[in-house]
């Protein structure tokens, strides 16, 4: 189980997170929705300590750490229980696809080389990119890079994978293949927290949808509750705009 309690974060005078708490059960897929600047990405980055929150606690499994005062040892432990998929992929430019997937296993977890290679190859095959294992990131398309990014996260068997707008840098044709892979991550029963603007993905895959705005959690519930019967006025406004925009494609 993963629990974030009373997370607060501001950049200068600009308060991004006001007292945010989320609870995630094992195997859950949490989708966080919200307009730009609502603090979704910051929340995700605070969980992985890519950003240091100003207050709050984080519990992953048995371990509870203070989001502000965590020691570097605790931060490393948390990071080794989590994995992150970046909006702009952030593959290691100096490593091949296979080396990208192996890096965390070998250097951070000290898995023997042969085992790490086997596991990395299996994971690459699972995202459908075994043929590209010796390609450098600059030789891969955006969608392929993001699938390697997902393989790099999944191979670590983390307790939770954090997805930060994994498809928003992709062109529309490549979004599908990437979402399919993310969906199969969910089917593996891996706990995920996903920040996305893909509404249909949220509807299909999420076990819980969280709507954030202005650094607050406005509303949370099952996809059916949020999309069909939103309670808060702000949620209705946001969804009305997004969904009418999505329907435009079908006209």
């Amino acid at each position, binding site marked *: 189980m993963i629990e974030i309690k009373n997370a607060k974060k501001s950049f200068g005078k600009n308060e991004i997170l006001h007292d945010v708490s989320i609870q995630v059960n094992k195997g859950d897929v949490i989708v966080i929705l919200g307009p730009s600047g609502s603090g979704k990405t910051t929340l995700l980055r605070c969980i*992985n*300590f*890519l950003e240091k929150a100003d207050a709050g606690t984080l519990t992953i499994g048995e371990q509870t750490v203070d989001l502000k005062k965590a020691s570097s040892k605790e931060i*490393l432990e948390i*990071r*080794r229980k*989590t*994995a*992150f998929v*970046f909006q*702009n992929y*952030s*593959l*290691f*430019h*100096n*490593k091949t696809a296979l080396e990208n997937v192996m*890096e*965390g296993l070998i*250097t*951070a*977890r000290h898995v023997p080389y042969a085992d790490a290679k086997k596991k990395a190859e299996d994971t690459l095959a699972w995202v459908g990119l075994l043929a590209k294992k010796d390609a*450098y*990131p*600059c030789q891969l398309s955006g969608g392929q890079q993001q699938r390697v990014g997902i393989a*790099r*996260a999944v191979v*670590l068997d983390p307790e939770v994978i954090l997805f930060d707008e994994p498809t928003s840098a992709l062109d529309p044709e490549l979004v599908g293949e990437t979402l399919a892979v993310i969906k199969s991550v969910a089917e593996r029963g891996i706990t995920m927290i996903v920040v996305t603007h893909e509404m249909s993905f949220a509807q299909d895959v999420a076990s819980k949808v969280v709507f954030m705005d202005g650094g607050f959690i406005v509303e949370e519930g099952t996809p059916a509750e949020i999309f069909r019967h939103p309670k808060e006025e702000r949620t209705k406004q946001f969804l009305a705009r997004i969904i009418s925009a999505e329907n435009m494609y079908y006209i």
Partner: protein
Amino acid sequence: MGFNFIYFYDSVRSGIEYLPNTFELTFIPILVGLCLGILIAVIRVYRIPFFAPLLAVLITLYQGIPLVVALMIYHLLFMAAFNNFAAVLHLSISMADINTIWIGIFALSLHATCYMEESIKGAFFSVDQGQYEAGYSVGLTRLQTLRRIIIPQVIPVALPMLTNNIVGTIKGSSIVMVIGITEVLAGSVIPASKTYAFFEGYIAAALIYWIFTILVEKFAMRIEKRGDKYRRNLV
């Protein structure tokens, strides 16, 4: 003005005789510059409190001093203060025991450190912040990320600039002539003190420096090609 090939040949031979001094005056500063340059660049890139701003100020100030001026100042300081300094430390060496080439090496090392630090720092900034975050996200420590992800990406960017710094240091080493150190330039014009064939002497020095720097550049280009395999053509 005539050109006497015999005098020219004498000058080349005399210059080559002092090539080891030029090697000392370039390779030691290059090595010191690389080590200190990397260290200072890392301190500044990671914004280590206290040291980063201090070093930034020192380097900016030091880069404003011409090499000749620095050399003169160190030489004078050395001559004025070394014996007293040795006495304070109860060292039984005097000024005469120290080869002045070390003053040249010292001054060139400081200059090489400043220039190389700037090149390396620039190369660090060319690596996207996301590369650090990706390293941390798969559970690497800061040091592991630096060693396995960042430095391998910094080197190919820094190499062309460092080659420039190295060639600059080779050519800069000729300036130590002003404090009486004999290296390739001073060595090449030694025969001219008898024959007055200064023109041949300077041409000889130019030729030796030219060959030396060409060799260094060729070598650097080879290394650059090796590190380039993963880089986009357009970066």
